[in-house]
């Protein structure tokens, strides 16, 4: 069988005449962690719902594990676990009872379910509170209970919609650790988020959503490369010397502009740091700082959407 566990072609969803998802092509490889990133309302959740067959498509095709979610929803849902945005549980039942209910819906026998529930709860570290009512659970515990449900069901694909939204930093990193361990177990993970910095550590690839389209699919490094203009940005601080005069003579420098007292920002087509430093020192300048300014991932993300806005 193919290693593409999810294949979407020209996926479209319209509400009335307004396209919410507008012709998306997406392929997910087995075992990878794919981040679906984009601002709120970019069509991430709608795409997820279409992949799961929970919303009808207006156009395009989806294959999940070589099945059509609209035609064979039970088979698809059996293998795909979904953790919805701000997941809810029955507050009057305990965590364990909530899982037992979904286990029965999934067709597990009682003995099998109890065994799997125990293992899953231990893995998400909820064993101690498993018999407390969910009403007493914190946000983070509810999310972990949601992950336990996916583990209990032996999902091959885990689709997590905004799993970290509204969590404190410690719960977030706990949750990310768990998600990372999912992919180590060979579960394919789809994570949607509007926060690149949070999911970048766990994603092998990201897909950037904007206004119902995917603008970019690839690794985070490829994203940084794509968004940058390919030029080198260097910051130099040196005293007792005219940096601009020196830098001008170096081959490849395209722009020099002052950036505060004794500081300069230089744009070049290649890494000229070593050469510039050597010349500055040779000419008697006291070099205090020379630094290549990388485009951070957060900036890349913002830059990407800024560019997308300009194009629109």
């Amino acid at each position, binding site marked *: 069988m193919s290693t593409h566990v999810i294949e979407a072609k020209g996926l479209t969803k319209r509400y009335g005449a307004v396209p919410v998802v507008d012709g998306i092509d997406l392929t997910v490889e087995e075992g990878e962690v794919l981040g679906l990133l984009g601002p709120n309302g970019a069509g991430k*959740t*709608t795409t997820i*719902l279409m992949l*799961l067959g*929970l*919303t009808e498509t207006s156009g395009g095709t989806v294959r999940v594990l070589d099945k059509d979610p609209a*035609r*064979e*929803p*039970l*088979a698809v*849902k*059996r293998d*795909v*676990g*979904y*953790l*919805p945005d*701000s*997941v*809810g*549980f*029955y*507050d*009057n039942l305990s965590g364990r009872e909530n899982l037992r*209910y*979904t286990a*029965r*819906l*999934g*067709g597990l026998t009682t003995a099998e379910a109890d065994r799997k529930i125990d293992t899953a709860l231990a893995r998400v570290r909820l064993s101690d509170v498993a018999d407390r009512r969910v009403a007493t659970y914190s946000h983070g515990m509810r999310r972990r209970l*949601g992950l336990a*449900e996916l583990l209990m069901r032996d999902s091959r694909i885990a689709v997590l919609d905004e799993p970290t939204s509204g969590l404190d930093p410690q719960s977030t990193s706990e949750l990310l650790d768990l998600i990372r361990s999912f992919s180590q177990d060979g579960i394919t993970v789809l994570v949607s988020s509007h926060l690149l910095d949070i999911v970048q550590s766990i994603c092998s690839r990201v897909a950037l959503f904007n206004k119902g389209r995917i603008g970019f699919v690839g690794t985070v490094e490829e994203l940084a490369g794509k968004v940058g203009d390919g030029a080198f940005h260097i910051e130099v601080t040196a005293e007792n010397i005219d940096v601009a005069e020196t830098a001008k003579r170096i081959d490849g420098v395209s722009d020099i502009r002052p950036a505060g007292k004794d500081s300069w920002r230089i744009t070049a087509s290649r890494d000229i740091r070593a050469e510039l430093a050597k010349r500055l020192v040779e000419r008697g300048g006291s070099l205090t700082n020379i630094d290549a300014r990388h485009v951070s991932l957060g900036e890349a993300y913002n830059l990407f959407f800024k560019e997308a806005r300009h194009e629109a």
Partner: protein
Amino acid sequence: MKREGSPLKGVMTIALKEAADHMTSARMHLIMLLVLLTAAGAVYAAIDQIKATTSEDPFLFLKLFTVAREPLPSFASFMGFLLPLVAIALGFDGVNGEYGRRTMSRILAQPIYRDAVLFGKFLGSMLVIGIALLTLWLLMFGLGILLLGLPPSGGDMARSLAYLAATLVYTGVWLALALAFSTLIRAPATSALAALSVWLIFSIFWSMISPFVASALSPVDPYDPVSIVHAYETGLAVARISPATLYGEVATMLLDPSSRAVGPVFMSQMQGALVGAPLPTLQSILIVWPQISGLFAGMMLLFTGAYFVFQRQEVRA
């Protein structure tokens, strides 16, 4: 285009969970307490009345259901009035409550069809109502045996069981209505109010409104006696739009063996009839069969409406 797997997979799981939730909910306890208290009051008053007017009656037990002593109405009319309230209490947040708790998308992501959720909700609530009605029925008989000192006859049993079944269908109409509102309206408080308004209109105001509607539809011509019959029949038809009217007719017919008809009867039709003689049980059921079918159809119609809307509903608000 055939769907894979059964749409009923998981129905019983959901139904049993719903039933368990209802059984343990404070809402259900309160409303059942109300029903039990009024039922006990009605029966106690009826027994007093029956004791005061002891006569030869082959269906003495059925009098427990129908005899009223001022100022209390009879058990049957209490049921007609209060059971919709029970059904609405069980159903008004059936679907929108799941959205509100944010459990709907998680449940629908399980390997079941949507059909199972609505079927399960309906069945679960019907199960609870069935258990409650059966308990009430048994309590009635227990009280009757204790206080009247008489065992119920076979006819009593047959008729009251038929009445029990009809009552279940009648409650089902209101449950389907409440579920339909909970599907259409996102806020549980609004859907509860909507269902309660319909209940108030049909149980209290409908009997006041229907004569006006009827007289507008078929006015009485003082020079044409047949127009009086037409007006009466139109009035009856309008009144029968309310499930409470239909249920009232069913209750009268099943619990009072001597009643012969639910509509107007001409003198010529009464020829040879032994007035006051009881009808066989099956004949009584036959007379109100259209009413029972009507109630059943109403239940199905409302449920289908809810089903239709729910199947197409977006998982996300």
